[in-house]
C-alpha cells in the first residue's frame, strides 16, 4: 500500500503514526512545506510572549521520520493532484509565499537540504514537476494566514503569525521595537497583542467588532477580556481598518481608513486563516471553504482523505458544514483519517469549536455556539459572581447543551464539552450547572 500525506502539521503526523500502528509494511511519503521537526503550532504565541523557549516547541524528535520509516519530502509545496492517475504533483523549485522580502533562515535550510539531497543547487530546475503515486492520499495542508489588503506590504517588519519562522523573525527585531500594531481581534491577533504586551511594547490593536474574540466569546466575556488587556496598556481602535503602510525600507507608519495615522515599528497581521487548497482540483474533489469530507474523513473521491484545518465537516454544535481550524480537531481528525486509510473503519462524530485562553488574571474557556440566533428552541442561562470574578453562560438547544462561555473557575469545563460533543440531554436543573460547585457527580442521577 502506498500512502502519501500532504502536510507535516499535527494532522499529518497523527495520521502517519496511526497508519503505522495498523500497517507496518506500507510506504508512507510525507510532503511538507515546513522543514523543521514537527512542532506545536499553538505554542508559537508562548514563544513570542517569552514563557516558552523557542527550542521547546517540538513535539516529535528530529528522528521522527526515520523512526516510523517515513520518506520525508520537505520544503516543498504541492502544485496539483492528478486524481485519475492517482498522483500528487510538486514543483521542484520550492516556492514559498512570504511577507518578508528575504527569510534568511529558510533560505539557509533550503540550501542545506538541497546539498544533502545531492542537488548541486547551481541551476534551480524551474517548472519541472515530480509526481508521487498513491493508493491512499491524505490532504492535511492546514491553512494559510488570510491576506490583508493595503499598500506598502513589501516593507520590512510586517508579519503574519502562523509558523515558527514568523515568530523567530519577530523575536529578532523585538529589541529595537517600541510600538506594535496588531490587525485583527481574533485569536491570532489577540495572542500576538498579548505576547507583545508581555514583552513590554506599546501595542495598538485594530478590530472590526466592538470587542476582541467576537467569534469565540459573547459580548460580556469579550469586554472582560478587553478590560483586562486595557488595564495592562493595550490600546484598542474599533471599526477602523488599515489602508496602507509607509516607511523607508521598514514600516514606520500605518494609515487608517478614518484618515488618521499611527506610528509603528512592527505590524502583526492576524485576520484569521484560510484553508490551503489552491492546488486541489475543485472539478474533481468537492470543496467549499475547506475540502468536504464524510464521517470517515474521506472526500467524494474514494481513497483521498482530508484532515485538519483544510477539512470541512459537520459542526456538532452548529449543525452545519463548517471549518473548525483548531489544534485538538486536527489531532482527532488526523487519527481518524489514519485509521480509515489503514483500513480500520472508524467514524468521526463531527467537529466542535473550542478554546481556552489564560491572560494575566483571567481564564477563559469557550466551546460550541455561544451567540445563538433568536429562535425559541434556544435557551440561555447565565450568572456572574462579581466577588469571585466568575462569569458563566450556557446555551441550550432544547434539552441539549450547544455552547458555553466560562470566565475563571474553568476546571469543570471538560464535562460541559463532553455534554455538547456526545449530545447528551441535560436532565438536571440548568441553574445547577452555573454554580461554581458544579461537578461530575451532579450528572450521575
Amino acid at each position, binding site marked *: 500500500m502506498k500512502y502519501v500525506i500532504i502536510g507535516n502539521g499535527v494532522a499529518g503526523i497523527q495520521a502517519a503514526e496511526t497508519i503505522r500502528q495498523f500497517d507496518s509494511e506500507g510506504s508512507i511519503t510525507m510532503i511538507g512545506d515546513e522543514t523543521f521537526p514537527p512542532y506545536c503550532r499553538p505554542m508559537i504565541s508562548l514563544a513570542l510572549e517569552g514563557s516558552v523557549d523557542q527550542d521547546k516547541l517540538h513535539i516529535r524528535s528530529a528522528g521522527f521520520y526515520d523512526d516510523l520509516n517515513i520518506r520525508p519530502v520537505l520544503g516543498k509545496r504541492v502544485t496539483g493532484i492528478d486524481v485519475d492517475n492517482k498522483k500528487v504533483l510538486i514543483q521542484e523549485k520550492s516556492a514559498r509565499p512570504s511577507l518578508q522580502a528575504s527569510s534568511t533562515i529558510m533560505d539557509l535550510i533550503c540550501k542545506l537540504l538541497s546539498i544533502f539531497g545531492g542537488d548541486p543547487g547551481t541551476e534551480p530546475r524551474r517548472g519541472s514537476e515530480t509526481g508521487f503515486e498513491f493508493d491512499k492520499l491524505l490532504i492535511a495542508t492546514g491553512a494559510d494566514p488570510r491576506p490583508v489588503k493595503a499598500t506598502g506590504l513589501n516593507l520590512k517588519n510586517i508579519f503574519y503569525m502562523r509558523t515558527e519562522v514568523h515568530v523567530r523573525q519577530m523575536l529578532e527585531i523585538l529589541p529595537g521595537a517600541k510600538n506594535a500594531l496588531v490587525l485583527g481581534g481574533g485569536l491570532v491577533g489577540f495572542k500576538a497583542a498579548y505576547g507583545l504586551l508581555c514583552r513590554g511594547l506599546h501595542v495598538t490593536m485594530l478590530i472590526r467588532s466592538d470587542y476582541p474574540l467576537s467569534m469565540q466569546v459573547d459580548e460580556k466575556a469579550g469586554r472582560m477580556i478587553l478590560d483586562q488587556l486595557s488595564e495592562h496598556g493595550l490600546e484598542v481602535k474599533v471599526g477602523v481598518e488599515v489602508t496602507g503602510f509607509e516607511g523607508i525600507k521598514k514600516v514606520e507608519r500605518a494609515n487608517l481608513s478614518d484618515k488618521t495615522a499611527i506610528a509603528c515599528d512592527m505590524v502583526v497581521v492576524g485576520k484569521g486563516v484560510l484553508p490551503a487548497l489552491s492546488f486541489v482540483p475543485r472539478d474533481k474533489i468537492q470543496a467549499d471553504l475547506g475540502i468536504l469530507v464524510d464521517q470517515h474523513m474521506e472526500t467524494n473521491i474514494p481513497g483521498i482523505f482530508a484532515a485538519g484545518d483544510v477539512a470541512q465537516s459537520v459542526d456538532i454544535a452548529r449543525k452545519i458544514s463548517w471549518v473548525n481550524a483548531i489544534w*485538538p480537531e486536527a489531532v482527532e481528525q488526523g487519527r481518524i483519517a489514519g485509521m480509515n486509510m489503514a483500513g480500520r473503519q472508524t467514524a468521526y462524530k463531527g467537529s466542535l469549536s473550542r478554546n481556552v485562553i489564560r491572560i494575566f488574571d483571567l481564564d477563559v474557556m469557550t466551546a460550541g455556539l455561544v451567540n445563538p440566533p433568536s429562535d425559541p428552541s434556544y435557551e440561555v442561562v447565565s450568572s456572574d459572581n462579581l466577588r469571585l470574578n466568575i462569569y458563566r453562560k450556557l446555551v441550550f438547544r432544547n434539552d441539549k447543551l450547544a455552547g458555553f462561555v466560562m470566565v475563571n473557575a474553568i476546571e469543570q469545563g471538560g464535562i460541559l464539552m463532553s455534554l455538547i460533543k456526545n449530545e447528551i440531554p441535560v436532565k438536571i436543573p440548568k441553574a*445547577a450547572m452555573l454554580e461554581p460547585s458544579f461537578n461530575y*457527580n451532579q450528572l450521575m442521577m
Partner: protein
Amino acid sequence: MKKVVVHPERCVGCMQCMIACATAHSQTKNLFSATLEDPLPRPRVHVGAGLYGEGFPNRCRHCDPAPCMFACLPGAIYRDWETDTVLIDPDKCINCASCAMACPFGVIRYHEDASAPLKKTVAVKCDNCLERQNQGLIPACVEVCKSRALTFEDPSDAMKRKTNEVAQSLSSDTSRIEIAPGFTLLNTIKRTQVELKIEN
C-alpha cells in the same frame, strides 16, 4: 494488575480520601507537618457534592485512549505502560488548561505542587500513588476509606462481584436486595431532606 475501583453507592462524603491524598503527595508525608508546607499540598481526588448532597470520590480514570493526552500541547501528558497510569510531566507542562477542556470528568487542577519546579503552576491529577506502590503501600485514598467506597483490587474481581450483586438484586424470586443497604438509606434521607427542604 490491581487498580483503584470506585463504588459510588458506598460513598458517605467524609472527604478523608482528599486529606489522605494531599498528605501522600506532600513533602513530609505527615498530616500535621504537611499543613505547614509551602506550597500547601492539595488533593488529587475530589469529593464533590451531588444535587442532594451525596458524595462521590471523583478521580482520574487513566482512560485509554486518554483525551487529555491528545489535547496536551507540549506533550507533557503520557502513559506509563507498566502501571497503566496517565502521568503529567511538571517540567514540560505549560499550564495552558487544554487538558481541562478535554477531561470529561473534570479531575485536573492547576496549582503549585511539591513535585513541580518551585513557584510554577502546573496541571495536577491522580498518579495512582506510584511512589507509595513502589514502597509496597496501597494508594492513600483506598487505605483511608472506611466505607469501602474505594477498593484496590483486580478490576475483573470487582466486576465479577458487582455482576453477582446486580443479578441478586434483580432476582424475581427473592425480595429486592439492596446493593449497599445502609448507604442507600443514608442517601435517601439526604435526598428527602433536600426535596422537602428540611434543614437538618
